[in-house]
């Protein structure tokens, strides 16, 4: 029992867990899942704006990680690598979904009722829906930067490690993303 407590007080680092997993210790992978599942789920949810799909997709992120962890080179932090998988899967998912649903923000704009709708709850749902659509219609790079920066509040340096872009390019992308959201959400201001 004392060993157990000691182990819990000083949790293994990601690299230690990866090393254990690469040696065949399956529970080490479980610990990585438990440690990052919420962050990955939140990230995927912010990217694709759908709860059920986000759950499935976040699970897929870890399945993919499981099969690719043997090739993990330790050139980047584990979470950087994991976030990259999550973003790629999210972008592919949105692309597929867009093809199916032909999401068009302009159609949404046309269908918006008058701003002075008395039903406040309805208006709130419309705002949420408009934000969803506005974010979904951002180009993939801008959406990734926006989600990592605005929701995850990652510093540009870390976003740069995840996306492999310079900090200057990321700042410009974030700015463009904000400008587009600003334009698309102007009806709600």
């Amino acid at each position, binding site marked *: 029992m004392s060993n157990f407590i000691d182990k819990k007080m000083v949790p293994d680092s990601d690299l230690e867990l990866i090393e254990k997993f690469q040696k065949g210790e399956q529970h080490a992978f479980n610990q990585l899942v438990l440690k990052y599942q919420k962050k990955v789920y939140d990230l995927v949810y912010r990217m694709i704006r759908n709860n059920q799909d986000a759950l499935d997709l976040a699970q897929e992120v870890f399945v993919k990680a499981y099969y690719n962890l043997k090739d993990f080179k330790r050139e980047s932090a584990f979470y950087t690598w994991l976030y990259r998988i999550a973003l790629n899967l999210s972008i592919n998912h949105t692309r597929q979904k867009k093809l199916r649903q032909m999401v068009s923000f302009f159609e949404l704009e046309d269908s918006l009722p008058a701003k002075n709708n008395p039903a406040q709850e309805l208006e709130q749902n419309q*705002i949420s829906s408009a934000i969803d659509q506005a974010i979904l219609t951002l180009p993939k790079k801008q959406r990734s930067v926006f989600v990592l920066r605005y929701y995850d509040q990652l510093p540009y340096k870390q976003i740069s490690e995840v996306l492999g872009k310079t900090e200057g390019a990321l*700042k410009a992308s974030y700015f463009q993303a904000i400008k587009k959201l600003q334009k698309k959400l102007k009806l709600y201001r």
Partner: protein
Amino acid sequence: MKECKKYQELLSEYLTGELSSEFKEKLDQHLVTCPYCQAELQELKATFEILEQEKKSAPAITELDFLVKVRTKIDKKQTSSVSPVFQPKWLGFSLAGVLVILLAWSLFRVDISHLTKKGTADTKTPPYDYLGQTGQNETALSEYELSQLLTPETEESLDRLYLQVAEDYYQKEDLVTVLADFSQSDFKILENRIKNINLNIK
């Protein structure tokens, strides 16, 4: 105008207070003289306010359920794969297994010491309440079954489970971490034993 664009790229960091004092000072000076950038700042503020309304946290997930589903997907993939890179034999961590373990924990929490005393179980009073069979000798676990179920190593595992759950789940509400820290052999022993108990209960 070109200068304005350069300043506008800094506006979001300005609003979140992340701008270095040097840039903040320059931007402040620019804002005083540039109504266009002032308007941009107000628009940006309004946009952030809208986004903030919706910036609720993503819907909650059940952590243990999430892990179980990840593991199930991995298992499925492995069984359909011809030559997996690893040959992982995961610890049989199915949802049913987890439920059985939780059930067992709740059972043993009722009176683990009672069950471990072979042949001394009082069948007229609890701990058998949880079976809905209080006082019914014919449906209680037999002494033989108890002795089979509760080997020293099972007792030790259950004891650990009980202590860990009590310590971690109630204090930190983090049962999943407790379960994840169980070694593969711990889990197998525990799960097999508990499955047997569950069968006996049925």
